[in-house]
């Protein structure tokens, strides 16, 4: 991690790569998202914050096509995302992690990460059946890539452990590894530090910053830990009951009266 004396990053926040415009989503009358708009710029770290039930996870689910908003549009790299199928998100370079860990429990750490590379593997059924020649070559190439991710996240020791047996903090790390294995352009992280102890949080923050910094990955994250959010994000979007309260740099958001009233709960009289 860069030390404080130097400019924080070598990356440059670029143009808008994703636009969320007037998105609304309801479930049988309950309005989870209400006319939400914001932009995501290339290479930035954008945090979405808000109290429970503010619609943060629903927002991520709309972005990667798991939910389809009834109104509004989400445009990613010039293409409409809100109507796309779930699996197409990955094909367009969007990866994510989940609030409640969604690893493949029956598989090892390595296999989970290899699964993240599935889209990049092209060899057909027949070669796979033989597990020889091109299929083997491809498998080994991707194993090497997966090992880089393992190395990056320092999870060598649990490479072949079934993920179901891992402690919570490591599972979260493996999940990040699976997302990274896809070499995404946009990484959606749903409460990556929830339930972690201080040390694990520090590690995770380091990994997130490293990913952003080293691969230039754009990151949209949901997080409850305010100090972390204020520390690492370039911009913050505040949601409350499905509506956007504010968006801006951490400092701007911190000073926003609506946010203070609704979320931070600090009295101002």
């Amino acid at each position: 991690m860069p030390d404080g004396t130097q400019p924080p990053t070598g990356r440059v926040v670029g143009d808008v790569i994703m636009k969320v415009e007037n998105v609304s989503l309801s479930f049988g009358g309950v309005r989870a998202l209400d006319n939400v708009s914001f932009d995501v710029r290339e290479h930035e770290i954008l945090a979405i914050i808000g109290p429970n039930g503010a619609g943060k996870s629903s927002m991520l689910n709309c972005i990667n096509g798991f939910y389809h908003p009834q109104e509004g549009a989400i445009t990613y790299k010039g293409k409409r995302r809100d109507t796309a199928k779930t699996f197409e998100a990955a094909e367009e370079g969007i990866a994510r992690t989940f609030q409640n860990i969604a690893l493949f429990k029956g598989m090892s750490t390595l296999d989970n990460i290899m699964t993240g590379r599935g889209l990049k593997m092209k060899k057909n059924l027949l070669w796979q059946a033989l597990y020889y020649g091109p299929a083997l070559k491809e498998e080994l190439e991707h194993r090497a890539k997966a090992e880089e991710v393992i190395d990056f996240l320092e999870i060598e020791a649990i490479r072949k452990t079934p993920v179901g047996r891992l402690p919570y903090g490591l599972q979260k790390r493996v999940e990040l590894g699976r997302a990274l294995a896809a070499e995404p352009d946009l990484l959606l992280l749903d409460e990556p530090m929830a339930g972690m102890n201080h040390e694990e949080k520090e590690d995770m923050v380091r990994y997130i910053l490293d990913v952003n910094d080293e691969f230039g990955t754009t990151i949209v994250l949901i997080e409850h830990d305010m100090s972390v959010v204020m520390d690492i994000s370039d911009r913050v979007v505040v949601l409350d009951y499905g509506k956007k309260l504010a968006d801006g740099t951490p400092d701007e958001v911190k000073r926003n009266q609506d946010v203070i009233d609704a979320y931070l709960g600090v009295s101002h009289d």
Partner: protein
Amino acid sequence: MDFLQAVFVTPFVEIWESPFFFIELVLVGLSTGVLYSLVALGFVLIFKASGMFNFAQGAMVLFAALTLVGLMEHGVPLWAALILSMAVMVVLAFVVERLMLRYLVNQEGLILFMATIGLNFILEGTGQLFWGSDVKRLEIGIPDKPFDLGPILLNTFDVTAAFIGAALVVSLAIFFQKTPMGRALRAVADDHQAALSVGIPLKTIWIAVWTIAGIVALVAGIVWGAKSGVQFSLSLIALKALPVLILGGFTSVPGAIVGGLIIGVGEKVAEGFWGPAFGGAIENWFAYMLALAFLVFRPQGLFGEKIIERV
């Protein structure tokens, strides 16, 4: 071309030409359907209360009927045999909870499902081991006389069966609405966690639902056994309850009843009018194909709720 005509034209023409035959088939179907409904009801009860898909419900029908017939063959009078059979089903509920369910708490649905397949085999084997596997007649005094209702030929047996089924459904409804245990079970069905947290022991719930399912199975076994004899095929016929559930939805009691009737009527009518086009015996698969079609277009069934998945 002939085939298409046989499927899409001829049956309708026939229905038009002989409406009474059609109505008769519908009525026969309804009486079969009541039986399907009864079996399906057993499934729904257990599924609602414990999230367990009890594949052994059919075997329980066979087991209950075999027990009853077996006792009667040994000279036990009907009333005593009924009480004893009921007692056996209660004991079965306890045994299943004690030896199986309590070890499977918190397992995923698929494991539970497969465990009930195992139970299915145990029950089939045990029932037949004790009472033999030859077809037995079950004489419980339901009259079986045809009678005419206008131009339509009816059967007293079918009417009685329909009444028994209706009576069972009504008494279950009363049980669920009026008794504390019934209310407790409904609470569990609505929200597992909440019900458990207010202190209803899981063990009790399981025993209760399995007992009820056992008694429902006994009733179904009696009616069906009286109609066509008690034999191994009972447990296979009970598999028909599966499509019923798909139509009606796995968690809906009314669904089970309506679904049963639809399947019953559907397969009789299909056999009667469409059967010839396919060379007959389409009753065997009609229900499943209907269910399959349903699954593709409305997976939650007629009465089930659409599930919203979250991540």
